[in-house]
């Protein structure tokens, strides 16, 4: 939801889910470092230098906490007290449903269905 940058939690800072594995956290950390590194093009024209340093500091802080299982557990508990966590719903592809419909055999006509009721081994 609507949050000030200072209020982002560690997971939001690294753009990962709260259920993220250590590898995902490492990837998120690397991505955040790329985004907020000195001279980053991604911030050009939008984010000031002071703000970049502030966020970079918090990114380091986030990674230091989340890489350590004990510290992460403690942080998660503190976070849960603040805000409950609803994991995202599984994504599915609409195309799958469509394909299944297309591949299903065509429905027999009414007469064929009636005939099947009386004639065995049709």
């Amino acid at each position, binding site marked *: 939801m*609507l*949050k*000030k*940058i200072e209020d*982002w939690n560690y997971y939001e800072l690294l*753009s990962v889910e709260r259920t993220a594995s250590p590898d995902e956290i490492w990837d998120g950390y690397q*991505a*955040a470092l*790329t*985004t907020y590194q000195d001279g*980053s*093009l*991604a*911030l*050009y*024209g*939008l*984010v*000031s230098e002071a*703000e970049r340093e502030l966020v970079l500091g918090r990114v380091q802080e986030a990674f230091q906490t989340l890489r350590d299982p004990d510290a992460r557990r403690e942080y998660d508990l503190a976070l849960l007290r603040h805000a409950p966590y609803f994991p995202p719903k599984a*994504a*599915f*592809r*609409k*195309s799958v449903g469509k394909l299944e419909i297309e591949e299903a055999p065509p429905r027999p006509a009414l007469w064929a269905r009636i005939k099947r009721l009386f004639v065995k081994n049709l």
Partner: protein
Amino acid sequence: MDKRVWAIGGGKGGTGKSFVAASLGLHLASLDRDVVMVDADLGAPNLHTLLGLKAGHPDLGDFLTGRIPSLEAAAVATPYKGLRLVRGSENILFIANLAHYRKLRLLRQVRQVQTQNVILDLGTGSSFNTLDFFLSANPGVVVATPEPTAIENTYLFLKSCIMRVLKLYMDHYKIRDLHQKMLDQIEKNSQSLYGFFRSLMETDRAYGTILYRALRGFRPCLVMNKTRDERDVLLGRSVADVARKYLLIDMKYLGAVPYDEDVHTSLRRLRPYYPEHRDAAAARAIRQMSEELAYSIEFTLRTPPEIRLPDA
């Protein structure tokens, strides 16, 4: 009919909007889909050149001036099966400054044209015409290149889209006094959009919620074009992430199209790039993007909020 309007736009010129649009259209047509491409770059149309065609009539101007009754009739067949093109008008002075009612007519006709896919190739800049075409589409794709100028203009374009969405909703709900407040506040710094919503939520939660939901309904995609190395590819991901965090929009990074000298060569020969270089990395990237967009649940089931343009 399951119809989709794709808009390819962006803040800066020369990023490859028309190239992406043309390749996307040619790819969709090669899958036996029905595609109508509209060169909505009102100031400088050249989509026909990228498709290897010559300028001529009928074009978009003929439709807008009423010489042709519908957009459907202005769509001419191309050598590519299933692909039709509405050429941009050469009468630039008239068409670049499109009157409001003509724009509404064009938007209406885009929705009515009988095809599965309409691809709008938009012009540069943040004029109301361009923004409204971009906002009316789903998906809207922003094309950027890994250069500071392009990144800067991409953010500017996104900000303009955001302001336009909010203004349309403000007009619709007759809360125009908020508009000036928004303009005053949003220019301040990167967190100004957040600040605007925060103060609005405190003073008027109902309108704040409406506007915030309208903003979240704006879900553009980003394509990083002409990437030369891994760093450029990652830049796209960073830009989308920054837009999500600072501009509060749900931006999706579709991927990168690698730089290819053959694009230039094809253009010089006046031949479209995509059909002749189907196995090149850039063509593969375009294919992947179109697949992702075509089958992505977010774009098939979640339609953008209906934006009603004021008739004034």
